[in-house]
């Protein structure tokens, strides 16, 4: 999707892995108006809960999503970021399917003329994605599969962006 002028906003929902360096370089290739780029990568963590010492071990995770609504919702979240901050380019890549512990799940990249906009938009996109993108995770643990519960903390983090 291209917004006005040279601004780009892209989303991909896919099973296969992504190359962080290639994706970031792809966003900035041929451009010299971008002053700063902020990114976030989410991974499959190998334990449940706050601390590794006390949490059940996770060997893999399966991500389910709602085809159609997923892309729509991510595009809406991305458009909202472009409304709030002057961004040159954004990219969201979100995987689904079965992922092993340590695997990359999601990539969010925001590029802007100035760093405060890139940083803020990146955090905003992750906070909103966590609370409104239709994905559901099921973890494989030693005690069997468990559906991950939504965390109230994520709602609190998303709420701080309310205007």
């Amino acid at each position: 999707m291209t917004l006005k002028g040279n601004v780009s906003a892209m989303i991909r929902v896919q099973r296969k892995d992504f190359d962080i360096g290639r994706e970031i370089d792809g966003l900035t290739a041929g451009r010299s108006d971008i002053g700063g780029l902020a990114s976030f990568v989410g991974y499959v963590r190998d334990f449940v809960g706050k601390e590794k010492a006390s949490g059940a071990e996770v060997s893999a995770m399966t991500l389910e999503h709602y085809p159609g609504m997923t892309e729509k919702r991510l595009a809406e979240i991305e458009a909202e970021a472009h409304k709030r901050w002057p961004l040159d380019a954004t990219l969201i890549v979100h995987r689904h399917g079965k992922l092993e512990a340590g695997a990359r799940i999601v990539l969010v990249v925001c590029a802007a003329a100035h760093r405060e906009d890139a940083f803020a938009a990146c955090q905003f996109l992750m906070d909103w994605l966590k609370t409104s993108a239709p994905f559901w995770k099921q973890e494989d643990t030693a005690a069997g599969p468990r559906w991950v519960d939504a965390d109230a903390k994520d709602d609190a983090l998303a709420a701080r962006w309310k205007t």
Partner: protein
Amino acid sequence: MKLLYFAWLRQKIGTAEETLTPPPEVATVGALLAWLAARGPGYAEALKDLSVVRVAVNQEFAQSGDPVKPGDEVALFPPVTGG
């Protein structure tokens, strides 16, 4: 009306999707959930705690008072856990 179920709701209900024709008085999300819960034990189990059930109508999040009509795509799922 096309019904889609995700995550543990799908497991409890026993199917990922189905096409249903609720009676005409089922005109809101809330009424639809009540009508579904009465369809069988799997549905009742899936819908016993509505605080952990979210609904989308035609791929937009919907609240209990929002309308549903024939031809809509209605999805039921737990609070999302992406990212």
